[in-house]
């Protein structure tokens, strides 16, 4: 539903968009992440007080960079211990007017998703520095006290001291950035906590950031594939939980609740990504998601094609979950016995994992073996660490016995 935005909201949107670019520019120029962040915060405060009064400058980004750079230098000047750095900093040209157009948001993202950081730290730092969320908002999303989150973010920052602020051409670095964004998306998507927790903001944020990466790297199939996967997955959000937060599996979802704008965009991106070699996991997962999303009824799903795609995915990744999904697709194409056979080798790899029992439950149910199905659902319910999933599995077991 579109609503007209107030001037205040426009102002906030603009600052939200400019902040990572400004921070990126000041980090690049100063080489000091923590101090640059303080300086940018002060510049934003200055903007909030002076722009409404004196009008917005012609080039807001340059104004913010210049103001933040001045604050940075002031700060340096006040620190006797850092005198030598002050001389270096003061001598450097502060970028004015037009800033080079390679995007500092992307550089900042590469820095925040540094392989030295654990995924959890990288996500928190990215949300704070690139996404512009407050520490309190991030803490709420993770259900930890604000002080705990502040500590994590500041540790992550100090770990990055001296890290190179260069866009690395190393494909591993890009892969790491995409992996962090994927995890961020998943944290928002899989959480069924109440809306007051704003966990779903994590998914929106991940989509927004992935769009920013794609704007810089439009030719990269992995990036396009990841964006497609996120859109096609997020499209189902409203239908995947019921009124009491209960989980609703794909086959039983009310498809009229799906976000069809996202599906249209996601399918187009998935097709484009699939034609952009080399073919990676995100492209394949997006293609599978597109096949699910583009049909109006679960019965119309093109399972043979999904089975083929899981076969390709299995060649690329050793992830046992992929094998598990391939077994499900095989059951949909060739019947439950074919699926059960494919699950057998997973007993060693996924011993005691709830997903293996849950899948067996579904396949025995398909066979009409209700008692065995219920046993597997109960075993899965005991093994899961997720509350909504446990409720779903207990419900399945109860409905079969």
């Amino acid at each position, binding site marked *: 539903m579109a609503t007209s935005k107030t001037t205040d909201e426009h102002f906030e949107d603009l600052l939200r968009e400019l902040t990572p670019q400004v921070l990126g520019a000041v980090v690049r120029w100063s080489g000091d992440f923590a101090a640059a962040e303080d300086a940018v915060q002060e510049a934003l405060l200055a903007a909030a007080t002076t722009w409404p009064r004196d009008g917005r400058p012609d080039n807001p980004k340059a104004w913010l960079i210049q103001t933040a750079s001045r604050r940075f230098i002031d700060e340096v000047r006040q620190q006797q211990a850092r005198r030598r750095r002050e001389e270096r900093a003061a001598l450097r040209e502060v970028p004015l007017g037009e800033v080079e157009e390679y995007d500092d948001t992307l550089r900042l993202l590469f820095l925040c998703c540094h392989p030295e950081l654990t995924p959890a730290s990288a996500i928190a730092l990215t949300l704070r520095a690139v996404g512009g969320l407050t520490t309190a908002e991030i803490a709420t999303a993770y259900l930890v006290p604000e002080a*705990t*989150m502040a500590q994590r973010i500041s540790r992550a920052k100090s770990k990055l001291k001296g890290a190179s602020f260069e866009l690395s051409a190393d494909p591993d670095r890009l892969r790491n950035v995409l992996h962090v964004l994927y995890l961020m998306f998943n944290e928002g998507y*899989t959480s069924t*906590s109440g809306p007051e927790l704003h966990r779903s903001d994590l998914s929106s944020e991940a989509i927004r950031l992935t769009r920013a990466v794609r704007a810089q790297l439009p030719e990269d199939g992995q990036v396009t594939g990841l964006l497609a996967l996120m859109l096609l*997955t997020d499209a*189902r959000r409203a239908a995947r939980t019921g009124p009491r937060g209960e989980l609703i599996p794909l086959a039983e979802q009310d498809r009229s609740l799906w976000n069809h704008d996202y599906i249209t965009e996601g399918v187009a991106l998935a097709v484009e990504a699939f034609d952009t070699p080399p073919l990676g996991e995100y492209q394949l997962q997006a293609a599978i998601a597109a096949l699910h999303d583009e049909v109006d009824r679960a019965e119309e799903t093109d399972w043979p094609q999904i089975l083929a795609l899981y076969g390709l995915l299995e060649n690329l990744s050793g992830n046992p979950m992929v094998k598990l*999904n391939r077994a499900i697709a095989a059951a949909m194409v060739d019947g439950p016995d074919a699926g059960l056979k494919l699950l057998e080798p997973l007993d060693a790899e996924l011993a005691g994992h709830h997903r293996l029992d849950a899948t067996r439950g579904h396949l025995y149910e398909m066979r009409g073996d209700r008692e065995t199905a219920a046993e597997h659902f109960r075993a899965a319910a005991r093994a899961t*660490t*997720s509350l*909504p999933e446990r409720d779903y599995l207990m419900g399945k077991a109860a409905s079969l016995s």
Partner: protein
Amino acid sequence: MTKFMLLMNMDGGNCDVPMLEWDKADMDAHLKHLSDGLERLRQSGELVEVNGLTWPKHAKVVRANGVSAPVLTDGPYAESKEVLAGYTMIDVESEERALEIAAEQSAAPGPGGVPLEQPIEVRRVMDSDGDLEDY
């Protein structure tokens, strides 16, 4: 990140006796070990919450009684094998890390600096992630 609750259990039968009879130096060393550990968890951003519980003499046990008012009893009883003395809620990368933190707490020194080796129960918190595979 995964949340775990570490439950520090004391030997119920001894609840009212031992700590009060420790040397002050031993007591200080014991508390310092625990508070240093908690400070490290604060610094690392892994601490969610920590609380010690009042002694069992303050405990009440409530049982609903379908007929009349709930039944209130004292408890847990002195002969209880284990009594919950306090708990720490942590948010950590892995179960391995949770066990490491628990082992540290369990190593808190007792009389004469000998590690008490109290049992620390490690319980994973149920999460709200409905990670239903979207086949």
